[in-house]
């Protein structure tokens, strides 16, 4: 988004803000999906993110930060709070957060491609396995990994959102990817 659009957005231009939503809704849902949030909750969080951004638009400093960093910082905070609350609720009921929205995965992706039914099934299985593996990561690791796979964000932006140095982002990312790969390759995981 250019500076002029952002300036008019800050001055209360709703058309500019609608354009901002159009631009960032897909990466935002992609992030929230990798955070293993179910569709309905992700929708609420995404909506709340944009509402808060609109309400705080005048305080946003164009010189200091990028709009994507700002939006994902809001979304991250909301998502972590929600997952933390959910984890505490499920601790009481004896369920795990791994189950959150897991049942949606296969049906969502079964129609995503033009491949053969066997390929689609394999793809859906891989995605479900990935979702379950993601859910076993800590919330902060999950957030870092989800941000890292967004095309919109550079390492510096991820570091700013997470509030850690760039070097730490890289080293943590390496460790998380390794951990995720081990989980996906582990026999116990597939049997589970």
């Amino acid at each position, binding site marked *: 988004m250019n500076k002029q659009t952002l300036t008019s957005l800050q001055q209360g231009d*709703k058309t500019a*803000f*609608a354009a901002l*939503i*159009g631009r960032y*809704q*897909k990466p935002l*849902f*992609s992030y*929230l*999906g*990798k955070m*293993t*949030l179910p*569709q309905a909750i*992700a*929708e609420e969080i*995404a*909506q709340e993110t*944009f*509402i808060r951004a*609109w*309400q705080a638009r005048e305080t946003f400093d164009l010189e200091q930060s990028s709009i994507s960093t700002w939006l994902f910082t809001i979304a991250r905070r909301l998502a972590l709070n929600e997952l933390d609350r959910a984890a505490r609720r499920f601790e009481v009921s004896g369920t795990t957060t791994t189950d959150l*929205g897991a049942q*949606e*995965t296969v049906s*969502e992706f079964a129609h995503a491609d033009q491949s053969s039914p066997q390929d689609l099934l*394999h793809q859906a299985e*891989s*995605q479900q396995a*990935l*979702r379950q593996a993601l859910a076993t990561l800590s919330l902060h690791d999950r957030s870092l*990994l989800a941000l*890292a*796979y*967004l*095309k*919109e*964000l*550079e*390492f510096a932006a991820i570091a700013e959102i997470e509030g850690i140095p760039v070097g730490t982002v890289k080293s943590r990312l390496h460790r998380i*990817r390794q951990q*995720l*790969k081990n989980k*996906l*390759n582990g*026999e116990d995981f*597939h049997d589970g």
Partner: protein
Amino acid sequence: MTDKHITKHVDIPKQTLSDDALDTLLSEVDFLEVPQHFTNKVMQSIDEIADEKATNNGSQHADDQVINAAPKWWQWAALIGGGIPALMQVLAFIFSAWNVSNLG
């Protein structure tokens, strides 16, 4: 993030997943879909919040006007007209209580 996104198509084996396959999977997978008319929904919520705020501000402003207005002559008359009999009643009650205790 271009250095992290290797856009190779790699078959994902059932049991072992390579680094490239993991990258591909994580880059390409989208667990959620953007709901239809999402932008409209958000803009509608923003409008509703703005309307609600304006309504609240309006009623708050009306309340402030009532509170801050200077008292009218009839408000003083009502206060004195109601206040004097009330004070007399209290005094009468105290006198009768004192009278009863003196008699007893």
